[in-house]
């Protein structure tokens, strides 16, 4: 297997990390204690649950369904809003990225302002990509102008901004270029893939919200393609996300063009997935990430 040389100082899109594996937004990211646990279990960085301009309880259940090789969720962006600040105490100096969502540039900048002074915040990740939240997420992410405006609004804080993109668009590179234009330090690809399942016994969708977003191994080939395309289109780093479950998947994302990766659904099978992958990924004989990044491009 191809392995990676562990660098001394890993920094991606302005955010310094303990390793290349980051906990994805919305997965075990609701409480400070749980974020701390994931860091101690080997995550090189953590992204929080997406925080919005006011508290939301989220969609009615079922919110999550687990299938062979895939997870489908429609959480509905539940979040404590400004109250989330209390969760970050004790995380000072740790690689924490706060995920933000909002309905317009003002909402994004409002939420960002709550966190921008905190010693426990190394970066922001803008969720313009959740496929199942009316007026939020992908409804912004599929409009490049809005993506750029929301990015600009948060870039003003002076803190590095990553923009997380949706694969549910005709051309993801348009969104990526809009984020870059808006001053983003990195793009993250991808959020979940728009999906629905129906229970034939119940004669209704299996998620309380009707439709939701697919994650896990099933979407890995979709995510690799998005990372590959963004790597060709953008100058800012690309963070790969979607379906990663082992070290070879990480190498594959890097070869597609990723500078780091995020892992979400993978924790379902194994909450120790970060240290397990680190064990397989890094070695003394490993290659420099610079030599591997994007090497699958002709």
């Amino acid at each position, binding site marked *: 297997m191809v392995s990676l040389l562990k660098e001394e100082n890993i920094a991606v899109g302005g955010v310094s990390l303990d390793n290349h594996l980051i906990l994805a937004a*919305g*997965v*075990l*990211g*609701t*409480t*400070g*204690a*749980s*974020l*701390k*646990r*994931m860091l101690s279990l080997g995550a090189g960085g953590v992204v929080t*649950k997406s925080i919005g301009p006011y*508290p*939301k*309880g*989220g969609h*009615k*259940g*079922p*919110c*999550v*369904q*687990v*299938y*062979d*090789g*895939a*997870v489908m*969720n429609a*959480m509905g962006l*539940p*979040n*404590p*809003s400004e*109250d*989330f600040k*209390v969760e970050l105490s004790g995380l000072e100096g740790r690689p924490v990225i706060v995920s933000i969502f909002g309905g317009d540039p003002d909402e994004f900048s409002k939420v960002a302002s709550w966190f921008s002074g905190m010693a426990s915040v190394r970066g922001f990740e803008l969720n313009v990509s959740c496929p199942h939240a009316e007026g939020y997420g992908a409804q912004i992410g599929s409009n490049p102008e809005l993506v750029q405006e929301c990015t600009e609004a948060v870039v003003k804080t002076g803190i590095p901004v990553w923009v997380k993109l949706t694969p549910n668009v005709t051309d993801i590179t348009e969104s990526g270029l809009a984020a870059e234009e808006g001053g983003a330090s990195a793009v993250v690809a991808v959020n979940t893939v728009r999906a629905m399942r129906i*229970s034939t*016994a*119940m004669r*209704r969708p*299996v998620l*309380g919200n009707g439709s939701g977003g697919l994650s*896990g*191994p099933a979407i890995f080939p979709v995510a690799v393609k998005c990372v590959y395309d963004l790597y060709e289109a953008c100058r800012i780093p690309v963070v790969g996300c979607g379906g990663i*479950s082992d070290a070879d998947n990480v190498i594959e994302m890097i070869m597609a063009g990723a500078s780091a990766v995020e892992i*979400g*659904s993978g*924790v*379902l*099978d194994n*909450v120790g997935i970060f240290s397990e992958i680190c064990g397989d990924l890094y070695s003394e004989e490993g290659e420099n990430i610079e030599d591997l990044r994007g090497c699958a491009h002709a």
Partner: protein
Amino acid sequence: MHEIASVPVKITEIRDETPTIKTFEFDGCFSSKAGQFCMVWIPGVDEVPMGFSSPSSITVQKVGEATEALFSLNVGDTIGIKGPLGNGYTPEGRVLVIAGGVGAAPLRPLALEGLADTFILGARTADEIVYKDELGSLTDLRISTDDGSYGHHGFVTDLLAGAGRGGSGVDPEDYDTICVCGPEIMMKNVLRILNEKDLSDRAQFSLVRYMKCGVGICGSCCLDDAGLRVCRDGPVFSGTDLLKSFEFGNYSRDATGRRVSGGGH
């Protein structure tokens, strides 16, 4: 990653346990052990966690929208059961069970399997005692009611701390495993007493937290300070672990993730 199916089951029997608690029997049998739970899908309403009160039943207290909707269902209606989920109790040796209110539900399987040597059951009032006859025939049952309308007048903790009036008290020292479920303030008091007697390592508590996924991915149920997931690393935690939790007995989080005072229920 393997499917965690929500299995459609038909309700075969509905028993009134108390004015606010019903048991729903269904036509599916899940290989659950005591303390494990399921996510119950009430179509069109919500999906909520419920302990298995047997491999083919749940016992539900009406507290809000989802449980009210459950109460309005009839025999023959279909619900979805996703489970068994969570870790469950690990009873060994002589087993003491301590239940408060509907907290008796996930402990009932211990009695059904003949594993509960002594069963302490607390309720607000006589009307609210669940499984009374059944538990009486299966185990050595001790009852307390807050209002004294049945059994010991007071709290289940009295039956642990002293001998209790009428000699219904027990000495927790006599047991190897102490399985507890009930309102968090009650569990906190039980833990305090057991800890005073240096028995916290024998005790196993089943916790309630707001659960959105039930399978360990969303993070809504995580418990401070260790950040463990109640749905996956729990819901059953040892007394020793809970002594380290600042959250236990003090606060929990609501659907938004904001802290609210008081533990789960």
